[in-house]
């Protein structure tokens, strides 16, 4: 068997760009300082490096560097944003609006806030994966303090209409928080331009290192205040205590600088490869469905359902070589299929049959050609094994069959 390995799971995490690794290396041994040590050269070098990284990231987002708070990752940033705002603004109101397709870092934080007195509205999304703007506006009440909607979805790549959502938030005077983990560094993300006031993102989804993330917190129009969730030395302007991960931050900054320069060419190249993959699979195989809108999505992502083939089983036909993700229940411990795809209105059967392909900066055309071949073979193999594919081919309407639910 061909032993090449093909990584098409860049929404899970991206490889760290070698240029990023190179930038980080001097900050382990040669420059070991703590950025909070104000009284010696080691500290000064570290602080300067952190400030530089903050500028690199601010420049990518077109915001002020003072508006960037470093954290350990997007999960922490989501927690800090939601809990920090709720703590700070709860006297003004306790209502938060989010959507059913958000990442668990947002949904589970909202569930926790509900136990602490918050009222949370979880909006439905359309078949295309988009939030209905009229429904969003109708959900805003006098006690609403914040709308939290992700920029781009991790499973489908669907991009919400950020500008329109920002305008609705502006009109009603509520804060707009966004988990932009999947979008930053891959498409232009300018929170100020669209009216996002608080925004979570992370290094390792944009070719930076793992273990370092950030929260954008608007300092003017409006000046957003957050209650710190981590108490200690008062780092990051009091919003997030804890010694800064200097090498990680340096790498994160470098990743932002590279993204700013190369994002457009990466996006053009990857969307062409993604389209090639999608078109080839949809033309060589029957009953392949695209999940989420084609019109507003990330350039490097496609989420496809291969009807009557179970996702994990399909992955087993090629997972010695190709890394992808599935919304199949079997890939999760809960035995429930992807809640994101279910929220799009896919039947559980199609959710079980889904595969997410997420390409990245290091994906080559050869990788895609190989993946097309392997997927086509895998789907055909699994359909030869599938009793429901056989029934479908015999013209049996599967919805009329009495299944033994278990």
């Amino acid at each position, binding site marked *: 068997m061909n032993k090449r390995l093909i990584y098409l799971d860049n929404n899970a995490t991206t490889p760290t760009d070698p240029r990023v690794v190179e930038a980080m290396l001097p900050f382990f041994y040669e420059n070991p300082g703590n950025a909070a040590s104000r009284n010696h050269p080691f500290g000064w070098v570290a602080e300067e490096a952190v400030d530089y990284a903050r500028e690199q990231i601010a420049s990518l987002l077109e915001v002020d560097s003072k508006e960037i708070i470093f954290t350990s990752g997007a999960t922490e940033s989501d927690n800090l944003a939601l809990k920090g705002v709720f703590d700070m603004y709860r006297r003004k109101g306790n209502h938060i609006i989010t959507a059913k397709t958000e990442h668990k870092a947002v949904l589970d934080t909202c569930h926790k806030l509900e136990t602490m007195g918050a009222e949370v509205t979880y909006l439905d999304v359309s078949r295309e994966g988009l939030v209905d703007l009229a429904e969003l506006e109708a959900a805003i009440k006098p006690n609403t303090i914040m709308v939290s909607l992700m920029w781009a979805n991790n499973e489908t790549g669907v991009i919400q209409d950020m500008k329109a959502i920002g305008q609705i938030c502006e009109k009603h005077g509520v804060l707009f928080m966004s988990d932009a983990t999947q979008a930053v560094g891959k498409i232009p993300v300018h929170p100020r331009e669209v009216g996002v006031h608080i925004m979570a993102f992370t290094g390792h989804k944009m070719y930076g290192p793992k273990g370092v993330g950030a929260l954008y917190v608007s300092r003017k129009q409006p000046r957003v205040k957050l209650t710190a969730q981590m108490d200690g030395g008062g780092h990051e302007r009091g919003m997030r205590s804890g010694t800064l991960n200097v090498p990680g931050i340096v790498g994160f900054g470098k990743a932002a600088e590279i993204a700013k320069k190369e994002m457009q060419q990466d996006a053009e190249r990857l969307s062409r490869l993604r389209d090639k993959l999608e078109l080839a699979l949809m033309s060589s195989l029957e009953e392949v469905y695209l999940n989420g809108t084609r019109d507003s999505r990330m350039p490097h992502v496609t989420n496809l359902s291969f009807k009557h083939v179970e996702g994990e*089983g399909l992955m*087993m036909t090629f997972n010695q070589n190709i890394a992808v993700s599935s919304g199949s229940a*079997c890939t999760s411990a809960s*035995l429930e299929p992807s809640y994101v795809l279910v929220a799009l209105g896919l039947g559980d*059967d199609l959710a079980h049959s889904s595969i997410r392909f997420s390409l990245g900066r290091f994906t080559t055309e050869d990788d895609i050609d190989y993946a097309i071949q392997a997927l086509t073979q895998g789907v055909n193999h699994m359909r030869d094994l599938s*009793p429901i594919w056989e029934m479908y081919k015999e013209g049996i309407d599967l919805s009329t069959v009495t299944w033994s639910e*278990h």
Partner: protein
Amino acid sequence: MAYSDKVLDHFKNPKNVGTLDKSKNTVGTGLVGAPECGDVMRLQIEVDPSSNTIVDAKFKTFGCGSAIASSSLATEWLKGKSIDQALTIDNMDIVEELALPPVKIHCSVLAEDAIKAAIRDYQVKNGIEVTAEASSH
């Protein structure tokens, strides 16, 4: 999750994939699971009525690798067994043989249900006293 070698072997080279003629009286068909649950097994047996012995077994499965391996193994075990012997196959035997982890035990349960459903179908078709429980779980 890493799969055991035996699961991988059955997955790559599944035994007895196929379809028996379900209109024949000597063939019993069990269809268990549901597409919404992510696994459906169809297991069929062909019985020699004179000796009450399973002479052939085939399966098709929609599901994960462990579900496919469980049904493949079940068909291997069924061939040559009497109906009574076949009814003694327990899902835990499959778990043990394939070294299934706890999250995959339901795959073995489904295989046991499929065996019982196929035998039951054969018995009902032929007016034989039904000794296979409809579903043990």
